[in-house]
């Protein structure tokens, strides 16, 4: 236990908690006996992969079990009150007033048809803690403390009128509206860009400190939790792995699993360089401008080259035109001007005008494996179709090719041949997506945020696989990502984009060395590091008032 909190009063105590979920007509254990002690003012970080039961424990701390789950055993004691046996109305009295919850997607959690401040004032007015005007006045003060721009007016906007990072801060303010004893943050920054994440993190940390609120901070990002938490608890498949104060946990993890989590960011592929014999690049994007129908220009004079066998990482925050560039290359969005060359020959702008061989050259792997694989088609056909379509394979040749591809992505052909995508895990689905791209025997693959929806351990596996395939098959990758850790591990060259323009480009080793373009610098310095003091240091360097705001237009 953290020394700082040892003598403080215990706020939440969970003992031997077991939660079961209903599936396939039986109750399956989700949480298998977890203990948790939280003192007043303490911030506990819960980390683990998806499915580890982090969010379930977070909800249980409010005495809440989601639909289809039930708390089967154990006790949850909040400030002397046993929540498992309390009546529904007693528990409801706690929620919002003494325990608050901040959800992952603020955009989906705010009601789009009410103003922010009205939603903010709802809980205090409902619990008769404050009058409406008082609550609104308080909201404005909180907005100011959370460094929202224009704090006296921003509350009178509707949720769609403010940006994602601001919305997440407004939600934190809302959670604070009744000055609760405990706030549960369920992945509050996962959906945000690094540059926006930093301001939300700083805001949350300050306000939690100021009101001495206890918090449970749920995330899968170790670097983030290192900034926020006093104590870290690691979960795996519904069981606790270990728990220790932050500094100790980072410096000296005890368990194998924790060590493997910590080691994730260490993967590094050796850097390759452009061929010096003056050969043509595989794909050359030249002065491309593009816009969606009737809209403003999304791409403005974008140019870069991709050489055979190399990985070019395209980085930038959301809306910077990374994916649009990919759409131009594949021909889904014909550019307004400029051209795309493949081995020195211009590609027709529209994919419908391209020949089968041109289409085969460039394959794509998608971010969301869920939507990238047809749920009603067998794996064998998903992978087999490109081989059949381009290679004209049939019968036993086709089956052999599919087996070969499954071997290549390290999945057992016997087991996966005739299964459907919904039966697979996220990482396995992503591997099938890779196999589908490989089946076309391309020379160039566009990877659109392929690891951002995956857990770190799984993402690491995918990166290693992609790197191995690159060496074996001589593939070139265009790697679209907003995660600089990924760039560091896999890229050979980096292209930084902002507002549809290429800000800076060059080989990786040069890009990660100063001097940088200011925007590159901002991106680089916003990536959380494992050092618990990192956030404090960055804030000091940048000055408290303009963290992250430099990224705004």
């Amino acid at each position, binding site marked *: 236990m953290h020394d700082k909190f040892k003598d403080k009063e215990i706020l939440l105590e969970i003992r031997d908690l077991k939660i079961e979920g209903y599936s396939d*007509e039986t109750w399956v254990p989700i949480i298998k006996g977890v203990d948790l002690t939280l003192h007043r003012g303490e911030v506990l970080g819960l980390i683990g992969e998806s499915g580890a039961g982090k969010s379930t424990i977070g909800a249980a701390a409010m005495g809440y079990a989601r*639909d*289809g789950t039930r708390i089967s055993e154990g006790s949850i004691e909040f400030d002397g009150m046993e929540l498992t046996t309390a009546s529904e109305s007693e528990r409801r009295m706690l929620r919002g007033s003494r325990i608050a919850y901040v959800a992952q997607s603020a955009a989906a959690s705010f009601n789009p048809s009410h103003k922010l401040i009205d939603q903010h004032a709802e809980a205090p007015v409902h619990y008769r803690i404050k009058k409406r005007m008082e609550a609104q006045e308080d909201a404005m003060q909180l907005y100011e403390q959370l460094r929202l721009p224009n704090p006296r007016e921003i509350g009178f906007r509707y949720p769609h009128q403010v940006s994602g990072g601001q919305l997440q801060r407004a939600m934190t303010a809302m959670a604070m509206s009744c000055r609760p004893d405990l706030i549960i943050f369920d992945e509050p920054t996962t959906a945000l860009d690094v540059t926006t994440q930093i301001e939300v993190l700083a805001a949350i940390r300050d306000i939690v400190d100021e009101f001495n609120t206890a918090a449970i901070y749920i995330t899968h990002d170790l670097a983030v939790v290192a900034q926020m938490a006093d104590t870290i608890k690691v979960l795996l498949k519904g069981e606790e792995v270990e728990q220790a104060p932050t500094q100790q946990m980072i410096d000296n993890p005890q368990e194998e699993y924790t060590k493997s989590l910590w080691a994730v960011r260490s993967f590094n592929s050796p850097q390759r360089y452009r061929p010096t014999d003056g050969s043509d690049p595989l794909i050359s994007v030249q002065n491309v401008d593009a816009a969606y129908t009737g809209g403003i220009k999304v791409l403005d004079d974008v140019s870069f080259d991709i050489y055979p066998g190399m990985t070019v990482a395209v980085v930038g925050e959301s809306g910077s035109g990374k994916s649009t560039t990919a759409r131009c290359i*594949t*021909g*889904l969005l014909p550019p307004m001007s400029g051209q795309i060359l493949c081995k020195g020959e211009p590609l027709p702008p529209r*994919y419908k005008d*391209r020949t*089968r061989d041109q*289409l085969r050259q460039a*394959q*794509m792997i*998608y971010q*969301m494996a869920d*939507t*990238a*694989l*047809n*749920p*009603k*088609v067998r794996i064998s056909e998903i992978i087999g*179709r*490109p081989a059949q*379509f*381009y290679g004209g394979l049939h019968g036993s040749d086709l089956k052999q090719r599919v087996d070969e591809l499954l071997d290549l992505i390290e999945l057992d052909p016997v087991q996966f041949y005739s299964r459907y995508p919904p039966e697979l895990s996220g990482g396995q689905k992503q591997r099938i997506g890779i196999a*589908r791209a490989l089946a*076309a025997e391309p020379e160039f693959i566009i990877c659109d945020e392929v690891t951002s929806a995956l857990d770190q351990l799984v993402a690491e596996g995918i990166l290693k696989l992609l790197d191995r395939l690159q060496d074996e098959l001589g593939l070139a990758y265009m790697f679209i990502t907003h995660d600089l850790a990924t760039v560091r591990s896999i890229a050979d060259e980096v292209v930084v984009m902002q507002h549809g323009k290429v800000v800076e480009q060059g080989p990786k080793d040069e890009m990660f060395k100063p001097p940088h373009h200011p925007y590159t610098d901002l991106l680089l310095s916003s990536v959380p590091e494992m050092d618990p003091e990192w956030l404090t240091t960055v804030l000091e360097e940048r000055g408290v008032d303009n963290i992250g705001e430099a990224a705004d237009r």
Partner: protein
Amino acid sequence: MSIFVIVYYAALIGASCLAAFYKQRGVFMLIFSLTLVSFVLGIIGGAGALRLVATAAGVLALAAGTSYAFREFLIQISRPNLAKELRTAPLTAAFGMFVIFTYAIAGIFAPWIAPYGEAEVIGQAFAPPDQNMLLGGDQLGRDMFSRIIFGARNSVGLALMATLLAFVMGAIAGLLAAVKGGWFDQLMGRIADVIMSIPSLIFALLMLSIFGTGLQVIVIVVAVIYSPRVFRLTRAVAGNIVVMDYVEASKLRGEGDWYLVRKEILPNATAPLIAEFGLEFCFVFLLIAGLSFLGLGIQPPTADWGSMVRENATLISFGDITPLIPAGAIALLTVAINFVVDWMLFRTSGLKEQ
């Protein structure tokens, strides 16, 4: 006070005590409120009203029992995957399936089940029910029961054909419109708008007066009237699927439209389409019955429920329920299909019961 009334109340009170003892809150509230209502009913309507309540409850219990048994039967005979789905079916859906099953049997084996031919005159006009004619005779002295059985074949078969045709036309147009987009989508959409803007019954009457009342004409006209609805649903469902990444991946591979429709979109759109099929079938059935009632549908002497209602309509003023029997057959089938469709919609929408 008759014995029946005493037994009636004793049974109700006994049942409510048992329910209360076994802590079946819902059942108890139901039975006991029925007891309280029965006090009032008994005072106003006497033993007759109570007998009616008892009969209704008996019929309901019988239907529930049949549905339960039928569902168990289906679970027993179907494959494991299907059996798992069936287990989630509510009793209403099982009842619906049972009714549909019965109608199908009646329709398919009509000539063997019906004691007489559909056009055979065997007794007096409007003969009362007897051992020979289970439901009495119609306005020409034909056996009502036989005609109901044959009607299941004619009316339901015709409606089924029309719905299938409407679905083939509407679904193909909708899927292609979603995939192709652009002018094809616009053209199809506007054609659908034009058809939908004309009141369906009037359009059908017009077309049937122009082209005559042959079976093919009825099927085609009804299919044309209902295909725009199918088109709109299919296009909406497919529109959500077309934007998926897997469809994009297929497009980039260079696949043709027909492959996209067949392999990528259709398998993901079947569930809502099947539910819609049940719903549309009801409307088509009612439209055809309506046309027959107006004399423009299936022509005599072919037995058809819609025209049977009209032909025997005069009887209703003599307090005879004969014309209500075919009407009841139509209503029962419609309700049954809706029960099944409700269950399917519930499953596809992924709603959870609270």
